[in-house]
């Protein structure tokens, strides 16, 4: 899974978000390491919708007190499964890396 897809799904998994909020949340999640520029962000959102991992919320489902122009996205069941799978893969990779480093340092 592409790294920025992972971060977008992670951001949206907590609560439905719109573009700018996703960008801010991803920057916070990655401690400033991952920056989603506008074209990459919105292009990726469209790709994830095509993939079936995200869906756009209808107008009447949008959270209240927002101007109404933003498009909100929420994660789908398939997206959540993909995110879980990727998290498990990264966790396994981190475990292997830690054990190899421990071996190398011993």
């Amino acid at each position: 899974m592409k790294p920025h897809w992972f971060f977008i799904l992670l951001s949206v998994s907590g609560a439905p978000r719109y573009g700018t909020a996703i960008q801010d949340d991803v920057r916070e999640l990655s401690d400033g390491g991952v920056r989603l520029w506008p074209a990459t962000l919105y292009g990726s959102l469209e790709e994830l919708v095509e993939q079936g991992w995200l869906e756009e919320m209808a107008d009447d489902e949008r959270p209240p007190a927002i101007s109404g122009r933003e498009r909100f996205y929420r994660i789908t069941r398939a997206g959540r499964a993909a995110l879980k799978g990727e998290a498990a893969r990264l966790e396994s990779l981190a475990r292997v890396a830690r054990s190899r480093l421990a071996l190398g340092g011993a």
Partner: protein
Amino acid sequence: MSWARVYRLALYLLPAALRRKHGPAMESLFARDLEQASARGWRHGALTAQAGLWDVASRGGYERLRRAGAALERCGHHARRYWSMEARAGRHAGGPLMPQPAVRQILLRHGSAFAFAFVTLTAAFLANFARRQIPELTARGVPAGTIAETLLFALPFLAALTIPMAVFVAVLREFIRLGLDGTLAGARRQRDGMRRLVVPVLCAAVGVSALAFVVTAEIVPRTNERLATVLYGRSAAASARTMTISELQDAARTVRPGADPVDLERVALYEVEVQKKFALPSACIVMALLGVAIALGVPKGGTGLMIGASLVVFGAYYVLFITGESLATRLVISPLLGMWGADALLLAVALLAVWMSSRASSDGEPIIIRR
């Protein structure tokens, strides 16, 4: 022209559907990022602006490649169905005529090829620039951040050179492909067939030329100014290459009539730079026509033709261009002739080649017989 306006123009690099749906949101986000970065200084602002524009350009190329891949896959699926139907009906003697591609498909394919060629050529030129500049900058103790800034500021003037090249490579490649799969032969036998293939491509080349003009006229002078400051350490006392068109024209007007040869050469330099900002983007249209002409002249050409023709055409164009610039700044020829001579010559060659190939095609092409 503000960064916001340039960004809005750059959004046309994205597929129309994506631009229409998310364009305002992207502009708004870009404006916010730019405002936050500019609060930290003009350099941060300029870097952010360039990164945002690069993001649009690279995403545009990626989106078009992705969609072209999906479209080709659908095409391949339809072609496989068509072939199997034709084979079952026994109508495959001599091969079926390839259906004429729709305008959208033609532009999509050329767009993807252009994006790929542009990114590849610009990356190659940037790598060459980095290879020449980084050792010297490092030896001078220039910080890594400033070196990265230098490479970013070099992108616009490199892009001004590679945009016409990418147009040529894209058009030549796609028309060679159309020649190899029989589409060109089919188009020649149809009324208005060739016009329906060529006109959309030339119109797209006009659009690319307009974009190249924005880059050359507005972006390059500003980034050249920053580049000169970093490379040569001077707080840019404006040189001709750091001036916009209006600044060049104003500077030329300050030289009074009957001035000495040094001043006249300075005026010629300003005029050369003004003409360059029009002539270089216009080369996109000439390159598109030349690509069509070469592919028509050698319909069975392949990768070898593409590489060979590219080397010859680029080499010839830039030798003519640089020679014209040198002669014009030394008052041997007029700036108009110096800067437009290369375009005019290659345009004449292209028109002649198209005319010759259209005459050759009317002298008895083999007709594919469908049983």
